[in-house]
Structures are given as structure tokens and as C-alpha cells.
């Protein structure tokens, strides 16, 4: 009877999850979506507690309390610039949880586990473990604990792939010999190693896609666990999570004009960056460097200004100064917009969140497709910490690694103000042709400092 009740509670929670994603489609209803999902999850947990007799409630309570104690300070204090790291960490936690539950499910029934169950378990554990180390590496790169450049060495694709193939091979052997429980940790080790190698070879600017792919893996492994336990709410929640990651990954890689495989195994950046170094010095002479006073004068006469934020804005926490500057411009009657490239920053939607934190009204945030036709009528485009997403080489140079990537047509604005820390090339290692255009004003320095000075210069006049 309890079993029947729990299925109905699961139905309710599935409905709430679906509604929650439906309500996430727009800002107005998104908060409701969050509550719906939380309620759905609570109902699923309560239903399960009613249906199954839990022998060790103490452990359950302890786990939950510890989880809440770790989770809530993170959620409350986390600076918005660190959201990508938090996301990577939560993928790591989620996938590890799923992999561990999968392992304990095997040990609980070993050796009486049929071939189908064990093959799903193996697939789910391999995915879970590789997502765990992959997400940990992504976290370390985003947090700056290890360098963000891709780790490139000869034959790395073969090393990575053979690690994965060994893990899968062990999984197949395990399914054929379900009593051989010693295989499980070895398989897990290879899956862990593969996740590590996979993400080590991926550079910082590809993180939006990587995080989305890891999201998809984490969801898929949760759905796999649902199959093993015949738990429908888990199958639905896992596949919703998985498809969400998948769609975001598709959007991200389309925005870079690259395939999944290219992102995962391309390792764009490291090689080219090395070859580019001498060239940078040579061209640097032609760049026109300006002071904030020059920029203030230009802005005095500007009627339309578009800010182009990128990861550099996040690094120097410049979003609040950007907003202040925008406010000053707006009180003068200047029209201000923000041009958001889909892969600007380190995760999908990163720039939107930072600017929202700085209280920028969200209808001033313009997506690439909508803002690009407006650049020719823009008086001043101010690039704050973006680089590759503005590089005109993506349109013209067929030999560029950026070629074919949709970019923000910043070069078409009447004046381009490019705030940049130094002449180092962007992540792709490509020099940005934008720097050498006659209507580009380069301002060197930390984004936050430059903008603060600019603000002071504008208030003077």
C-alpha cells in the first residue's frame, strides 16, 4: 500500500520538476520554478521515507546536516564571479554521489546481480567517476589552482582514449564475471583517470562547453541509477538534467563554430600561443594607446554606447564600475546596451549573472544576434575583458583557429575602446585584428582601474 502511495507522490514530484523547467523559461516566473523544484524534491524524499523502512536514520540525518552545513555557506557567501567554479564543484559532488550509490548497490547484491543491471551500473559508474575528476579539474582551473591552459603532449588523444577503452573493457569483463568484485575499484580508477586527462587537455575558454557536457554526464548517470533501482522519478530528473546539459553544450559549441569532439580533443590554444609570441612584439608598435581622458572626450559626444563584457571583467570584478559608468552615461541621455556573446565568460550565462549582480536591468543585455545589426549605428563600443569573441579574423582569416566562429561585430562601431591588461593574445592565441584598426582606442590596464579612472575623468568634465 505504501508502495502505491509512493508512486503517486513520485508522479507529483515529476510534474513539479517539469513545471519548474517550464517556469525557468522567463525571468518573471523563474523564482516560482525554483520553489516548484524544491517542493518536488522534498515530496520525492518524503515519499521514499514513507515507502522504505530506513534502518539508520541517524546516518541519513547526519549526512543531510553535514551537507546543509557545507552547502548553505557556499550558497550564501559565494561571489557571483565564482559561480562557474561552484557549478563545476556541484557536478563533481552530484556525479560522485551517483557513482558511490551505484557501487553500494552492487556490493549490496553481489554476486547476485544480473547482466543487464550490472551493465547499466558499470556505465553509470564509469560516467559518474569520470565526471567527478573532470569536474574537479574544471574546478581547479576555474579557481586558478592550476593553470588554465590545455595540457598538450604528443599522443594525448591515444592516452586518454585507451584509458577510457580499458575502463569500458573492465566493465564488460565485470558484467561477464559479476562475482569478481575486485574489478570494480580498478574500473573506477581508470574512469577517474580518463576524466582527469580529458579535462586537463581543455583550455579555460572552452569551459562553458565542458561544464555543460559534464552537466549532461552527471544527469545521464543519475538516470542510469534510476534504471537500476527501477525508480521513475530518478529516471525523469536525470534525463531532464542530462538533456539540459546537452542543449547547453550544443548552444555553446555552436557559438564557437566547433563540434563537441573538437572541444573535447581539440586543445585549442597552447600550441598557437607559443608560435605567436615574437609576432606580438612586432605588431605592438602599431597599436594606438590612449588615456582615459581621451576616452572621456569621445564618450562626451557619444549618443549610443555598447559595452562588450568578457571573462576579464569577471577577473577584475569590474561589473559594478561598468554599471556606474553606464549610469553616468544614461543621465546624460546616452543610450547604453550590453552585447553578450554566448560563450563570453566561463559558463553559459556567466556575463548575464555578473551584470545582474551589478543591478544592470536585464533588458539592456542584448544577445549577439540582436545586437550585431546595431553596431554600425553605435558611436562607441567599449570592450571590457573580452577578446576572441570580438576578433574579426573569425570572419576573414580561413587559417585562424577562430575562423567561422560567430563574433560580435564590434569592429563596425564608429569607435572601439578596448580595455586590455596587456598585449597578450586571447585564449585562442590569436592576435586580435581589432587592435590595429584606425578607429580603435587601446587603453591598457586592469579593467576595474581603467574604468574607475574613466569615471573620475568623466565626472570632471
Amino acid at each position, binding site marked *: 500500500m505504501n508502495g502505491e502511495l509512493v508512486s503517486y507522490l513520485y508522479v507529483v514530484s515529476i510534474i513539479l520538476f517539469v513545471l519548474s523547467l517550464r517556469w525557468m523559461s522567463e525571468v518573471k516566473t523563474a523564482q516560482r520554478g525554483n520553489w516548484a523544484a524544491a517542493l*518536488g*524534491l522534498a515530496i520525492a524524499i518524503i515519499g521514499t521515507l514513507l515507502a522504505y523502512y530506513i534502518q539508520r536514520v541517524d546516518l541519513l540525518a547526519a549526512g*543531510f546536516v553535514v551537507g546543509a552545513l*557545507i552547502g548553505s555557506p557556499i*550558497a550564501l557567501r559565494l561571489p557571483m564571479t565564482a559561480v562557474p567554479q*561552484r557549478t563545476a564543484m556541484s557536478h563533481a559532488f552530484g556525479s560522485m554521489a551517483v557513482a558511490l550509490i551505484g557501487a*553500494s548497490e552492487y556490493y549490496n547484491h553481489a554476486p547476485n546481480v544480473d547482466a*543487464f543491471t550490472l551493465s547499466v551500473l558499470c556505465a553509470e559508474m564509469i560516467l559518474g567517476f569520470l565526471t567527478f575528476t573532470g569536474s574537479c579539474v574544471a574546478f581547479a582551473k576555474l579557481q586558478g589552482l592550476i593553470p588554465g591552459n590545455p595540457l598538450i603532449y604528443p599522443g594525448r588523444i591515444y592516452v586518454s582514449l585507451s584509458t577510457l577503452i580499458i575502463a569500458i573493457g573492465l566493465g564488460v569483463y565485470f558484467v561477464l564475471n559479476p562475482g569478481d568484485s575486485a574489478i570494480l575499484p580498478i574500473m573506477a580508477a581508470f574512469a577517474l583517470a580518463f576524466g582527469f586527462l580529458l579535462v586537463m587537455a581543455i583550455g579555460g575558454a572552452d569551459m562553458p562547453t565542458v561544464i555543460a557536457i559534464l552537466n549532461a554526464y552527471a544527469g545521464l548517470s543519475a538516470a542510469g541509477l534510476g534504471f537500476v533501482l527501477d525508480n521513475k522519478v530518478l*529516471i525523469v530528473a536525470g534525463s*531532464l538534467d542530462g538533456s539540459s546539459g546537452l542543449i547547453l553544450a550544443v548552444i555553446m559549441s555552436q557559438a564557437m563554430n566547433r563540434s563537441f569532439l573538437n572541444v573535447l580533443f581539440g586543445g585549442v590554444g597552447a600550441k598557437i600561443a607559443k608560435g605567436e609570441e615574437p609576432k606580438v612584439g612586432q605588431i605592438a608598435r602599431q597599436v594606438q594607446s590612449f588615456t582615459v581622458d581621451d576616452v572621456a572626450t569621445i564618450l562626451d559626444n557619444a549618443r549610443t554606447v555598447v559595452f562588450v563584457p568578457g571573462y576579464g571583467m569577471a577577473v577584475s570584478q569590474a561589473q559594478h564600475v561598468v554599471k556606474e559608468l553606464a549610469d553616468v552615461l544614461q543621465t546624460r541621455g546616452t543610450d547604453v546596451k550590453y552585447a553578450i556573446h554566448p560563450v563570453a565568460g566561463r559558463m553559459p550565462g556567466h556575463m548575464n549573472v555578473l551584470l545582474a549582480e551589478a543591478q544592470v536591468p536585464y533588458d539592456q543585455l542584448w544577445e549577439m544576434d540582436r545586437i550585431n545589426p546595431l553596431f554600425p549605428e553605435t558611436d562607441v563600443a567599449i570592450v571590457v575583458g573580452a577578446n576572441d569573441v570580438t576578433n574579426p579574423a573569425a570572419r576573414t582569416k580561413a587559417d585562424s583557429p577562430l575562423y567561422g566562429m560567430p563574433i560580435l561585430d564590434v569592429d563596425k562601431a564608429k569607435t572601439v575602446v578596448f580595455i586590455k591588461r596587456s598585449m597578450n593574445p586571447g585564449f585562442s592565441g590569436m592576435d586580435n585584428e581589432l587592435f590595429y584598426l584606425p578607429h580603435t582606442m587601446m587603453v591598457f590596464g586592469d579593467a576595474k582601474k581603467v574604468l574607475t579612472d574613466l569615471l573620475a575623468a568623466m565626472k570632471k568634465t
Partner: protein
Amino acid sequence: MVANAALSDLSTNLIIFILATFLGVELIRHVSRLLHTPLMALTNAISSVSIVAGLIVLSEPKNDFILILVTIAITLASTNIVSGFMITGRILRMFRRRDPNEGKKKQQQGGDQAPK
């Protein structure tokens, strides 16, 4: 016995999985790009429903080793649940605060900002 249940319900579960994936794709496609970051936090919290699987295993643990594994898993999933929903709410509140602010500005400037 759990294993047998999984086998007999395989086709039903596959149908559920496939339909849910298609539904998910359609739903996520319509999510505004503004909200992709909170969306990720939210779906991550939703998939922490795997804690339910932990509870099920906890109802019939064979030995202490399994207890340890599951307790770690429940702790990790709980962390995701708590921080996932909280951070989603926090990010969304930042977006919501815009509306009144926005209206005022539009009036001041004669509504010259393109809406939407």
C-alpha cells in the same frame, strides 16, 4: 529481486527516459539565455534526487562498508540540494530586482531604450 524488477520494467523505463529527454530538450530550448547559469544550478539540484536512491540502499544495507559509501553519497547530494536551490534563488532575486528600477529609467529617458 531489485534486479528482476529492473529487467521487467525495462521497456517502460526506456520509454520514460526517452520521453523525458525529448521533453527536457524542448523545455530547455525555451529557457532564456539570460537564465542559463541559474538553470544549471537548478537542474543540478533536481538531479540530486539521486539521494532517493541512497535512501533505498540505506533501507537494506548488507554491511558497514556500504553504509559508509551511502552516507558519503547522501552528504554530497545534500550539499548539492541545499546549495543548488539557495544559489538559484539568490541569482534569480538579482534578476528580479531589475523590474521597478527599469521602469523608472525608461520614463526618465522617454522610453528610448528598446524594450525586451
